[in-house]
């Protein structure tokens, strides 16, 4: 089902300001849309409005061309997985999963068939007659998914469903969820504050901050073309190196003075109107190359080394004392306190207008 949000806004009763405002979003049929953002930015609020659990203060929510603003949750043909799983503690796993169907007075055999089918897919057949309190966190999570699945909804809503699992299980469930989404082909809207989840699972990411959408697009677009400083700083681990500075004579001079970068032809064109103005320059750690080039070379002193296995993160200090993180392949040998020469991969520079924080160029 296609989900469309038109200029959606939400103001909680008793609050002065809008928690969310001017949210425009088009979520395509069968896509896996991840709503990403720091804590408190209004992700859950948005999801709950789509679910019908919170009222919509302004704007229009449209499912497949039909206005949904006033439709109660049970008639929206959605299912939701909660962060706390919200399993009914007094019912067995089977009854939890069967609950929505039995409320709709489906025949017993149909219910049984659907529950068993979902249990089969999620591998929880063994626990069907246990109470939620008697199974592990990961299993509960599956039950919550199963409860959503048996209804065969047209939209899946998930609010940080993996945040209570340990790292290993989370990794596993990420893949599992993507696989599930492939099989079911249901439109999925998934809320998280974990950018790894967003990058690995999404067809489309919507990054929010402070009640506004910062950028929407594919994971690639997010990584390679952050549209503003917030996105650049939020997406990617380690965080992108970002330096304030100004354009002088077509070159970027960082405000500390340690970096002077002559941008590529393409960037230079886009930067032409910014001559003499303040801009931020960003570069990802893996796009910094070691060695000396005729231009744009800088020196950095290795401060701390983080060994991640396949790569090493060098936390370095520039000559003016500012930090830079450089990632190099794990087998390269570096030692703390050494000074090395590095230069930039000019195709990977990002420039942002310091005033508006918007991206310069494409």
């Amino acid at each position, binding site marked *: 089902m296609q989900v469309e949000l038109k200029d959606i806004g939400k103001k909680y009763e008793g609050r002065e300001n809008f928690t969310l405002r001017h949210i425009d979003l088009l979520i395509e049929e069968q896509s896996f849309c991840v709503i990403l953002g720091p804590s408190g930015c209004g992700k859950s609020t948005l999801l709950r409005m789509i679910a019908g659990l919170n009222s919509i203060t302004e704007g229009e929510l449209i499912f497949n061309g039909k206005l949904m603003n006033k439709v109660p949750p049970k008639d929206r043909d959605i299912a939701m997985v*909660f962060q706390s799983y*919200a399993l009914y*503690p007094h019912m067995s796993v089977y009854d939890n999963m069967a609950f*929505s169907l039995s409320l709709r007075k489906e025949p017993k055999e149909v219910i049984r068939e659907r529950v068993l089918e979902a249990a089969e897919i999620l591998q929880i057949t063994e626990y069907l007659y246990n109470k939620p309190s008697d199974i592990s966190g990961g299993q509960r999570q599956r039950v919550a998914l199963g409860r959503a699945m048996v209804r065969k909804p047209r939209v899946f809503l998930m609010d940080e469903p993996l945040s209570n699992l340990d790292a290993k299980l989370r990794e596993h469930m990420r893949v599992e969820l993507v696989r599930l989404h492939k099989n079911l082909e249901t439109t999925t809207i998934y809320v998280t504050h974990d950018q790894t989840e967003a990058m690995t699972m999404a067809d489309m990411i919507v990054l929010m901050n402070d009640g506004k959408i910062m950028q929407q697009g594919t994971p690639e677009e997010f990584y390679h073309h952050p549209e503003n400083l917030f996105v650049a700083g939020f997406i990617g681990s380690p965080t992108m190196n970002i330096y304030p500075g100004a354009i002088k004579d077509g070159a970027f001079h960082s405000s500390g003075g340690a970096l002077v970068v002559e941008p590529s032809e393409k960037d230079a064109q886009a930067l032409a109107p910014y001559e003499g103005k303040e801009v931020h320059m960003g570069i990802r750690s893996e796009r910094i190359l070691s060695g000396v080039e005729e231009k744009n070379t800088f020196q950095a002193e290795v401060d701390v080394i983080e060994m991640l296995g396949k790569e090493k993160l060098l936390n370095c200090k520039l000559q003016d004392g500012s930090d830079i993180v450089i990632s190099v392949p794990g087998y390269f040998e570096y030692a703390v306190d050494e000074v090395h020469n590095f230069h930039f991969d000019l195709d990977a520079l990002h420039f942002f207008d310091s005033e508006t924080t918007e991206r310069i160029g494409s």
Partner: protein
Amino acid sequence: MKKKKEGLYLSDRPPLSPLGKVLLVLSYVVLAIWSIVILWPLSQMVISSVNGTQTKNITMGRRFAFSLKHFEYLFNETNFLLWVRNTLFIAVATALLTLVIVSFTGFAYSRYRFKGRRMSLLAIMLIQTIPTFAGITAFYTMHSIISGFAPFFTRQLLLIFIYAGGGIASNTFILKGYIDSVSTELDDAARIDGCSNMQVYRLIIMPIARPMLSIIALWSFIGPFMDYMLAAILLTNNESLTLAPGLFTLINDTRTMNQPAFAAGGLLTAIPIIILFIALQNQLVSGLAQGSVKG
């Protein structure tokens, strides 16, 4: 061979010091005295009620001869069975009424934000502090007005409303607190699954809050058994009395005086309450809310 443990251990704590041992002995002594103070009159009551040699006034140190004649007297010569029926009727009705009302108020106060929520909660709490007895004239007037056009509104019905009404405020508070501890995500999940507001309560919240509801039911059920004053004042006809004032007629009125029968009646009164306790004991075990949300 197992090494014998030195010292005296209480549960999983370090061994007791000499002072600790003295205190332990002391606390046992206190507990023993306490139970004697409680158990001795009780045992006297039980013994007297089956002692055939006791006459109208119970006197200590009489010869013991087992007999059920006091029970016979109770059943044949007094309105004891009527009193039991009245009390059961009032108690059951009170418990049911309390449960229904408190279910609504507790759920509403816990889950809904409405105008005057805080104020009304405060108000019923304040009104509660006025002793029920102070309203007795109001109850009289109310009763005479209502029974004027609705003759079926008996004094007993009035009593039910007073008992139920009296417990509403505190019970609402207790139930609200309990429901507050149940995650609202359960409500949300139930709503998405297709529950109406009533169904959210009936199918999800009520089963989870059952331990609390059982306690509330038990308290309101016991109330009419224990209350003497209101029943004695409002119910004037001997046939419509509840157990407490009914049995009281056996010890305060020289014409109907029969203390051993009073003891027998008191003994029998305990039975329905004990039955209820046993029936509810599984429900009273709480902890159902565990495992619903990841802890």
